[in-house]
Every structure is written in structure tokens, then in C-alpha cells.
């Protein structure tokens, strides 16, 4: 077993799980927003903010993946294909906080955003308050990202 490919699995997991979370997360409020827009097209701007909020987790995963690729020397052309298995596992473990927390929090955030879309239809002026609630859920994805980032940084 080659450590490099385990590390690459870490890169994949970070981008993949957060990406899945964000795409599900954006999809749920987007469906609700489409329903609202069919009757109130003028609500586009307000519902748009709520729809895009769960997309951030995907970026956290993407940036973590990119940082890992940088560390692996993929952009400087100094990739160590004979990496030790243990080092590869380190990368994989470092990817887990952002990957799992990103996946779960994006989906949960989307539920808050969906309620927000319904609220935006009835009381557009209250939209920003729901945005704050949605941001509360994202905190844990941020903590996951920071943890992953520091873990990756700590790898030799």
C-alpha cells in the first residue's frame, strides 16, 4: 500500500463529502425558492441569499483539499510517490473533520434556509434574521475546517 494514494484519498474525501453536502444543501432551499418565485418573482434576491448559504461548506472542503495538494507538492512538481503509509493516513485523518462536519452541517443548514425561504415569502424584511440562524449552523463546519487546516499544516 502506497501512502501517497491514501493521502490522495484524503484530498478526495475533503472535496467530495463537503461537495455532496453543499449540493444537497443548496438543492433543498432552491426547490422551496422555486415554489415561492412561481407566485412572487420579486422575492428572488432575498431567497437567493438563503439558497447559496449552504454552498460555503463545499468551498471549505475544496480549500482544504487544495492545501493538501499544495503540501503534497502537486503544484510545485515535487510529489513524493513513495510516501510512507503512516504519513498518507495522517492526510486522510486530517481531511475528516472538514469532510464530515461540512457534509452534515450543509444539510442541516439547508433546513434552516428552507424555513427562511418560506419566511421570506411572508415577511421579506425578516430574511436577514434567518440568515443569522443559518450561519449559527455553519459554525461547526468552520471549526471542522480550522481543525483540518491546522492538522494538515502540522504534517511534516
Amino acid at each position: 500500500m502506497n501512502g501517497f494514494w491514501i493521502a490522495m484519498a484524503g484530498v478526495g474525501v475533503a472535496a467530495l463529502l463537503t461537495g455532496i453536502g453543499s449540493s444537497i444543501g443548496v438543492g433543498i432551499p432552491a426547490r422551496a425558492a422555486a415554489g415561492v418565485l412561481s407566485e412572487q418573482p420579486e422575492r428572488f434576491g432575498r431567497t437567493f441569499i438563503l439558497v447559496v448559504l449552504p454552498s460555503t461548506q463545499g468551498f471549505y472542503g475544496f480549500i482544504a483539499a487544495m492545501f493538501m495538494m499544495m503540501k503534497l507538492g502537486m503544484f510545485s512538481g515535487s510529489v513524493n510517490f513513495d510516501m510512507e503509509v503512516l504519513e498518507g493516513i495522517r492526510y486522510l485523518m486530517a481531511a475528516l473533520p472538514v469532510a464530515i462536519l461540512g457534509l452534515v452541517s450543509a444539510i442541516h443548514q439547508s433546513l434552516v434556509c428552507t424555513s427562511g425561504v418560506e419566511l421570506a415569502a411572508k415577511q421579506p424584511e425578516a430574511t436577514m434574521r434567518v440568515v443569522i440562524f443559518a450561519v449559527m449552523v455553519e459554525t461547526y463546519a468552520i471549526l471542522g475546517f480550522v481543525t483540518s487546516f491546522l492538522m494538515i499544516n502540522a504534517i511534516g
Partner: protein
Amino acid sequence: MGLTKLQKATLILYEDEREKFLKELQDLEMFHITDSRSSPLVDEYPDLIPDKKLTDKEGEEIFNKIGRVVEIFKPHSNNKGILGQFIDLKTGISPERYKTIVKNFDPDEIMEICKWDDRLYHLHNQLTEFEEKKEFYEEWKKMKTPIVKLEEVKNVIVKIYKIKGKLEDLEEALKDIPVDYSIVFKNTAKIGIVFFIYKGFEKEFNEIISEYGAESVDFRDRERSPKEIFSECRSKMKEIESEISGISKKLLKKSSEFEKYLVLYDYFLSRIKRTEVLNKTLMTKNVFFIEGWIVENSKDVLEKLVSSYRGVDLTWVKPRKDERPPVKLENNKLSEPYEVLTGLYAYPKPNEVDPTPYISLFFAFFFAFCLTDAVYGIALIAISFFLLPKLPEGRKYLWIFIAGGIMTIFAGSLTGGWLGNNLEVAFPAFSGIVKFRNKLMLFDPFKNPLNFLKLSLGFGVLQIGAGLIIAMKERIRKGNYLDAIANEISWFLFFIFVGIGYTKGIKIFIYLGFLPILTILLFSWRSNSWIKQIAKGGFRLFRGLIGFLGDILSYSRIMALGLVTAGLAMSVNILVMIVRDLFPVIGPILAVLVFILGHTFSLAINTLSGFVHTMRLQFAEFFSYFYEGGGEKFEPFGLENRYTRIET
């Protein structure tokens, strides 16, 4: 800075002067009318609340019609553009134009538009009916004889069917029954047939035809031939379509006056409000007793207005003991834009501190370090300045972005963010930027993320420390000295002692740290029972220790968002490099496109994230130390501006 001083007033208004006075009061937009009916006054004077709600029936009727006209013309006049999708843009209108529109208001014109709309609705329904009818008869249009004529043939019953199966099979099945038929149409799916059955053989015919899944056809209009009906449908549809086109043209022409209907909408809404506001007041048949508030500096304006009316009395009064006045924020030019954020959370109570100036101290800094790219900062400033004249409604938000943009240039310089940390990768021509960037850069977030984390947590310590100081100041202002000592001062002493103790290695300071802890435990909450007091003090101590840690850690989001912006910008540059080298000729053109679109997207998504997360830090972390909110906003009785804004 803080809250504006307000003066309470009561107005006694006689019915004769009501409309004129209220109109002028509304134009002034200075007097906040309170709900006297939910005050203790009601218990003293229960008879002063009438059984019926006051309404302006005539005004409401016209308003509803104008509302309908606005809805009719909205699809024709949606010229708000992309910005209008995000912000409720109002139509700017000069006072002269406003007056002219109101003066020339013609209710018949509104009625006529509504009638056209009614007619249009009716015509569309008719058109749908004829369309369905035409579609039905289209298959049978070859039949030139009405059904009743066919039924005149003696001893014969006429039945019409559409069949799916093969005609040969049906012919075979019907060969023993005296039946004749005529095929009207034939297509790939079905065959339309008129059957002539000799009387007495209907039962046998029905049994056979049902086996073939035939669909019986019922012509409702049997007096005329399908051909005739089909032709009639076509000519009727033409007539209807021509009438629809005529009305639509008239409506389209009227839609050019959309602005006029928006003004009338707001005018009549304001008129209705003049009556509705009286439902907050106490009244007899001819006299209204209005309570409200006015900014102290504007007292003379109200006095002057009242002096010109014989039927209006004004008295300056002291608020009742239990009464809470509304709240009007007053801040300097630099802090004023942040009032929208305070309003978004909650207005302060009348005796509470206004958090706006404090938000203004931190917001731009935190937002800047979430964005961490100097060029993004410049872009944000440019976009905001460009939008300022176009978006008077979003003026305060735009100034927040301008301040944030300025700070972002600073934050970007410190972290080396100039369209990412690797612009030279995308365009080697910019390799000169490396020297300039490195000269200004304090740390590279990707190479030294720990420095960025320390900075973010440092921001947290700073803001939470400020929160504690404000809380302490507030307690002292209210005379709660012991509370200030047993809470905020003790926490400060604790952190100072422990901090010195650990950093300098002086044990005595660590032991001294127990003193403020003991003070918090014993005195931070006061009660008649010592057990309760200590129990609650213990809870405060525990919550404080955990709370500080959690709150400060929450500021790590600044680092996370800063890294995301830097990382995204870097990714765009790498993508540009790949695209540039991928294709020989078109590559560089595509690369420029990817560069512009990529960085625009990055700027948009990171500005949104940076803004909402910075806002969250203010509301959830900072405010929890000193601010509760819950005051009523000072909203003077004024003109309604749902769609229009009078430009002064």
C-alpha cells in the same frame, strides 16, 4: 452618540380640523403616535374606545382598485434590473410631480383600466373554451350534416364512436348485425365512425363495440353540423383575439404611466393611514386624544403647526412611570450606517446603551480579515461608489461595504492578498508584484496559518474585552457598583492575575486569581438567600469560563473565511494558468474570461460570507455581554412610500 432625547406630547384634536391637521402632521413626519388603547389610561376611561373601528371606506375602495392597476402593469414595467431583484428599489419622484399626479387624479381612468382587465380575463376564458371546442370538433369537421338530421332516418339509431383497434376485425364482428357505418376521420391512433344501427339490435351492437374499447362520442350541439361548429369556433376565436389585442394595446399604452399609479398607490395608502392611526387613540364622537413623542429639538415645529389650528390643543407631558418611550438612534457620520445592523437585531431599550458606535469600531476590521484581498477591497469600494446614486435605499449598507473595502485593502496588504497570493502564476507579466507584495506582507496565511489563527482569536479577545468594559460602564452608570465589581471587574482581574502568573512564572499572581473567582462566586448574583446567591454565582462562574472560551474560539471563523478567500483566489489563478497553456490561440482569451468570472464569483461569495459571519460575531458573541435590545423604534407618523420616494 446614543439615543436621541424625545419629548412626550398629547394632542386634543376636534373632528372639524381632523383631516387637515393630520395631513399636515403626516407631511411633517416628526410625531410618533403611541397606542393609547393599550395604556393604563383605558382603565380610567373605558368609554373613550369606540365599538367600531374607524375606516376610510372611500379611500380603501380606490386604493384597492389602484393596487389592482399596479399589479396589472407590473409585468409590463419591470425595469428594476438585476439590482431590483435584491433590493426593493423605489421610484424617485420630485415633490412637484407628486403633487401634479395627485391633483390630476381621475378615478374614472382607474375604473376603466379595471374594466379592461375584467374584460381581458373574461375574453381569455372564452378563448380557452373555444380552443377546447375547436380542438374537439377538428377531427369531425368533415361531417356536414347535423346529428339531429341523421337521426331523422326511420328505424335507425345513430351512434358515434372513436375506435382504437383494427377496422377489419370490427367489421367481422358486426357482420351478423344490420349495421351501417361511415368513417369520418382516420389517423394513426384512432378512427372516428358514425354507426347507423337498426332499431332492436342496439344490445348486440353495444356488446360487440364494448369489446373493442371504443370511446363513445357525444356531440353536445346536435342541431348544427361539426363543420359549422368548427368554422364558428375559428371565427369567434379570431374576434376574441382581435379584441384581446386591442385591449392589450390600450393597457400597454397606459403602462407607460406606471409611475403615476405608483404615486397614487402611495398617496391613497397615506390617506388610509390617516384614518387608521386614529384607531390607536382614545376618542369621543367629536374629539380625539392623541399621545405621542417628538424629538426634543423639533418641539417648536409642532408648536407652530398647532398654533395655526383653533381646534387642536397641544400639551407637553411627562411620561407615566411604567411608560417606555420609543427609541431613536443618533450617531455620527462614521457610525450611522451601522444603525441598520442594530435595527436588524433589535433596537435598544430606552435605558440601554446603543451598540451602534461599538459595532462600527470592529465590523470593518473583521469583515476585512474575512476577505483578505486588497484588490477585492478596491473592487468593493468601486462597486459601492458606483451603486450609491442608484441605490438610495441601500445607502447605509453601501457605506458599510466602503468602510469594509478600505480595511480590506489594509488586511490584504498584510496577508499578501492581491487577487490571491499567486497572481504571477496566472499572468507572468505581473511577476513584479511579488516584490511589492512581499514588502507589505506581514504573514502568508497559507504558510503561517497559526499566525492568522492567533490574530483572529486576538480580535475575539479584544472585542469580548470591549464587551465587558461596556457592560461594566453600564452598571456603573446605573449605580450598580457592586454588580460591576463582582462581575466584569472581577473577570478582568482574574485574567490579569492568571496571565501575569503564567507568563512571568510568578506563583503569587496565580493564587491572587482566586480572589476575583471568589468574588464572582459570592457576589455576582444577589439574593435574600445565601444558598441561592452562591448557587447562582457558581453557575455564572461556570458559564463565564466556558462562555469566554467558546466565544473567543468562534472568532476563528475570521481565519477560516480569510483562508477560503485566499484559497479561492489562488485556485482561480491556477485555473487561469491551466486554461492559458491548454490551447495555443484561444487559450489566453479563455484565460482572461476565467480570470474575470472566477474572481467576480470569488468576490461575491466571499463578500456574502464575510458580511453575514461578521454580523453573527456582533450579534451572538459581542452583544451577549452587554446588550439585550427590545425597544420600540421611533417611527414618526408620515407618508407611506411603498413604491415611491419623494426626492428633496
